[in-house]
């Protein structure tokens, strides 16, 4: 993979954001932020990884001027399920919290991205939130991922489904 491999999309975002910067992309100095929610419901590690890289690109394009949440709903919760849990999961075939995935999650969470995990989905797949999930700051469990997506949009979050 070439260095800086995501430049085109970042640039694309950066241009958009600069264009809008005057009116809405404002940082901590008392200005407004853009709020964005990413929806992940794919079980595929590859798709999840690509989604997280989009989040990172977005973050890098926008810096302090953005607040991002990632809602893991349906089988998207597999992003944070530890591989050891695979033995007892119900209807979930992937446990994607590999070192590669968790490194990216940890990086993003440290940079302020908040991960919201759907409790309905955990229950449906017999995932024990205390033992089967990767934990870090900024990873929280919400009762209903779909309702959370609706709630955030009602608050003005932009919705992106990678």
């Amino acid at each position, binding site marked *: 993979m070439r260095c800086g491999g995501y430049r085109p*999309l970042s640039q694309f975002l950066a241009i958009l954001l600069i264009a809008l910067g005057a009116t809405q992309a404002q940082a901590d100095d008392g200005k*407004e932020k853009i709020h964005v929610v990413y929806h992940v*419901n794919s079980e595929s590690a590859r798709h999840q990884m690509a989604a997280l890289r989009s989040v990172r690109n977005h973050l890098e394009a926008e810096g302090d001027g953005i607040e991002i949440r990632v809602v893991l709903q349906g089988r998207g919760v597999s992003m944070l399920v530890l591989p050891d849990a695979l033995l007892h999961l119900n209807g979930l075939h992937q446990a994607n919290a590999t070192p590669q995935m968790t490194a990216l999650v940890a990086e993003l969470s440290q940079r302020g991205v908040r991960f919201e995990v759907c409790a309905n989905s955990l229950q449906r797949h017999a995932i024990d939130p205390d033992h089967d999930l990767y934990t870090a700051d900024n990873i929280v469990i919400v009762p209903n991922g*779909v309702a959370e997506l*609706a709630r955030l949009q009602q608050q003005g979050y932009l*919705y*992106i489904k990678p």
Partner: protein
Amino acid sequence: MNRHDEFDLNAYVDGELTPEENLALLGALQQDPELAKEACQLNNLKAQVKLAYASPPGLQALQRPQRKSAWMAVAAGLLMAAAGGVGGWLASSPMAQPDRLVVLDPDGRGQAPASANSEETRIVFHLTTPDQAAAAELLDDVEKMLQAYEADGRPLRVEIVSNGEGLDILRERLSDYKERIHQLAQRYHNLTFVACKNTIDRLKVQQGIEVNIIPDAEVIDSGVDYVVKRQQEGWIYIRG
């Protein structure tokens, strides 16, 4: 597999490849359905970002400029005027309710807070992938939401729009969840299943398939036009 990396894909989606590179990548897309799917997803993402930034987000209208560190302050429990996510930029539309209030939860927990008046929450779900199991999980969460709103006496309207490969779940012969959809449609009158006629026509013309849609679904002309229209009307959009 000799994979093209994401640089190439991004460049392709952004239209930044030379004609030769473009040709080579198009060839690769034809050979590799996975790659083609990825390109499609990237394209989709780009379109969404464009759409998102083309419309000034609700927050801009909601937050008052003099409020420093507005987000934290607001999250700490202040009430703020909220016309609903996309509502803010619809101020000129008859749907807009600029006086609506939303209580923000500092932890992001808890569900769709009560609005100050009894305005209906309206959500359009857009199913476009053939993954019926994933759609069914979405239906589970939707049902819980319908239950919760009903229990609290809060008005909610939900439409589930299927087009493209997402139509399968509404097709008489292909749906794995006919019974479940029937039960939900019977039980919740504020829930509507909607099928795209463009897709039905395309299947007939291109593949000679006579599509039968389950009786619980309504048929509209274009699924994509429909969900765009709903968003313009202030509906919340969630893709399955």
